[in-house]
């Protein structure tokens, strides 16, 4: 069995790549058990209740970056973790969240920390989406990503969602980022999801598509408008139910 170190993990919070400030993390996905035990049953009988999704992460203080953002108590933003680091198709854990706390801590012999930041599911979603990474890098022009086949090696008919994090914004150029799907790796792609963030500011966005066919191959296309060759740093996570 292949064990994987967590050292290459990438944590994106509302567009910001805060990997170098995050000391550890813990995602939690659970279901409230609802007891429906009836007479004559041999043991307690539980059925799944409502989902609970949560992320806790310990972070270091840096007033110029993470502290300033997290002190704003974010809500309805996206947090995405790429636990193994980025390679096309690597697993991702993503969640729309509201930030539940901000509790800096320190002592004379220690570094200042932000304590354990808690991110709670925003409720209008499936909780922690265990998807995969379709993009993570910096580009300067229109770029068509490589197609990635669904881990099941087939198409699905299910709700799907994509999350976009923009961590390096463009000064002049703008981009349209889309997720495309196809029945063939080499060709035949059509648009599945289109993000509205245009690359002009750091931020995050989650787009969903209601249940429909999601073809087995997916890729990211970032189309530039402009000619300034600005750096555009972004990451894309994709998930479907089922």
């Amino acid at each position, binding site marked *: 069995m292949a064990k994987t170190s*967590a050292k290459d993990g*990438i944590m994106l919070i509302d567009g910001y790549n805060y990997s*170098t400030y995050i000391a550890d993390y813990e995602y939690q996905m659970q279901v409230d058990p609802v007891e429906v035990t009836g007479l004559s049953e041999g043991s307690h009988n539980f059925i799944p209740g409502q989902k609970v999704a949560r992320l806790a992460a310990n972070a*270091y203080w840096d007033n110029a970056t993470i502290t300033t953002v997290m002190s704003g108590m974010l809500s309805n933003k996206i947090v995405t973790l790429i636990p193994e680091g980025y390679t096309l198709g690597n697993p991702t854990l993503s969640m729309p969240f509201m930030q539940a706390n901000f509790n800096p801590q320190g002592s004379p012999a220690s*570094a200042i920390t932000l304590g354990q930041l808690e991110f709670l599911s925003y409720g209008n979603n499936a909780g922690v989406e265990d998807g995969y990474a379709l993009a993570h890098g910096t580009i300067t022009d229109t770029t068509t990503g490589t197609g990635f086949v669904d881990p099941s090696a087939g198409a699905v008919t299910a709700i799907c969602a994509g999350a976009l994090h923009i961590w390096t914004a463009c000064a002049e150029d703008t981009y349209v980022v889309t997720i495309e799907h196809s029945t063939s790796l080499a060709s035949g792609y059509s648009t599945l999801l289109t993000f509205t963030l245009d690359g002009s500011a750091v931020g995050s966005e989650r787009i969903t598509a209601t249940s429909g066919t999601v073809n087995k191959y997916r890729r990211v296309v970032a189309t530039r408008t402009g000619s300034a060759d600005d750096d555009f740093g972004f990451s894309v996570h994709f998930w479907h139910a089922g």
Partner: protein
Amino acid sequence: MALDTKAITLAVSNLSVSGVDIRDIDRIPDEVTVRQCPIMFPQPGEISVGYEDEPATFGGATGTYWPVTRTINFLYLHAPIGEGRGAFSHYSGLADKADAMIEKFMELNITGVDILSVKIDGFSKPIEGPSGNMFFGFTVSMTVREKVNA
């Protein structure tokens, strides 16, 4: 930020303790004579020891934050054994210098370096100089934490 042994030894050499010649890492004497005492310098063979480090954040090979804790040792030689009026005649002077030294070390302010502890050892025992001669003196051990990719 990164490891910088010479910045630490330089800061220590700039301390002012009455009557003591405090030397930087580039001026460690091969031999110490009675006329050079009292003198302090980085301890040969034990200058930088006891490394403890492990990655503290994510961020890849060049971005991961590494706090590094280690101990920098200094050798203080007060006077050669046999010099003075009696076997314990130097203890009073040693005590003054030890107290002054430890306070000065605790007050060090070196950019990017956290001083976690300062200890004095060997105060009442003969201590070996760089050429093997024995002295009244002590070692000062300063445990510091530095930050790689902070």
